[in-house]
């Protein structure tokens, strides 16, 4: 579940297409400390695969990837 109490920072990328959700998440993570959690909301269907690949490649753990209506919600733990 996306537990809001664990989240260090929220990032809203709703309405934006690839590559903006990834570029913004990359920027937001840079400003966090290891172990901090970034919660990203997006509406781009392509972001599901993008965030899976991003987490795998960058060593930031994708805690969960949820769909609520037309919105995709990701929680990334900075590695």
């Amino acid at each position, binding site marked *: 579940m996306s537990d809001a109490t664990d989240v260090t920072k929220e990032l809203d990328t709703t309405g*934006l*297409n690839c*590559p903006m959700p*990834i*570029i913004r998440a990359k920027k937001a993570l840079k400003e966090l400390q290891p172990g901090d959690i970034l919660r990203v909301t997006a509406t781009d269907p*392509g972001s599901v*695969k993008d965030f899976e690949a991003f987490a795998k*490649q960058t060593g930031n753990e994708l805690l969960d990837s949820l769909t609520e209506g037309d919105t995709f919600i990701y929680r990334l733990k900075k590695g």
Partner: protein
Amino acid sequence: MELTNIHYVAAIGFALAFVFGAVVNKTNFCTMGAVSDWVNMGLKGRFGAWLLAMGVAVGGAQLLELSGQIDLTESIYRTTTLGLGGLIIGGLMFGVGMTLSGGCGQRTLVRVGSGNLKSLVVFIILGLTAYMTLRGIIGVARIELIEPLSLDLAEQGIEDQGLASTILPWLNIEVTDGLRWAFAGVVSIVLIGIAFSIEELRSNFDNWFSGIVVGAVVVGAWVITGIFGYDDFDPVPLEGLSFVAPTGNSISYLMTYTGSTISFAIAVVFGVIAGSFVYSVISRTFRIETFSQRGDMINHMIGGALMGIGGVLSLGCTIGQGVTGISTLALGSIIATISIMLGCAITMRVQYHRLDERGVLSSLFGGIADIVIPWRKMA
């Protein structure tokens, strides 16, 4: 209506493009995504898919040409005019545009098919600006400002802008059929080899499958227009797959239907949309997407215009030049494709720096430096 050669060519083109649209939708093949994955994540799988498409297309198209089936010097890519200004300026513009509007020409069509109304806006603006650059008011600027920045290779005794025809005379080596075969074989094998050396391509079905299909569809287009459609009395232009000028021509065709004739390229535009639509309905991924932010809408509109104008100046998009043009081994296609990639990658880095609330110029210089200075460590 009496059916003629062009109707049969268009019908088969539609079917081929239908497969392309469905496969691209399923596999997420995307040239902008390919650059994004690499620049933003260090992942090369989708870039490998693009290289694989090039390699397959080069192999197939060159086999057709060197065995005497088609003459690629009849295509727009291998003429003796090397439009350096248009290829570089247009390519850079197209690269910027495809990043701002979330995907290149073919991706726009695929997204239109899957219900993305943002891409429908891009489609219309891209088509209109492409047409304006071909035949309208922007065409005046193209002729006055861009066309003079061209080289006439014929003046230097070069017969066409194919790699073998341009490189070998420069090395004082006579161009022979054997050397043409060698060039074609080496380029095709190297591209396919580089693609398969990328682990993320080998391990991902969608990546290698889409690369092979996109390359094969381009070869199929050469076969349809060059062999199947070959008719002395009712000729059709020799063309591969291309999406910028054809999008403009498609809009014109719809508006002047009763006085117009279908072409292979127009049928391809509609085929890609239809293939993507059917796949998205079957896979239950069809959904209406609209703009929700002012800035996003402005970006998409500017991006559409840059792709429309830039795509005509550079004689093609990431598929038109980046796979079809490359398959002819034209020097101009290599220049255009690299320009598109650079424009796209630099824009991504500019967008990244802009998030620091840096000024436009500072972000621009930072973005250019990130991409063109290989040893610079990117943030």
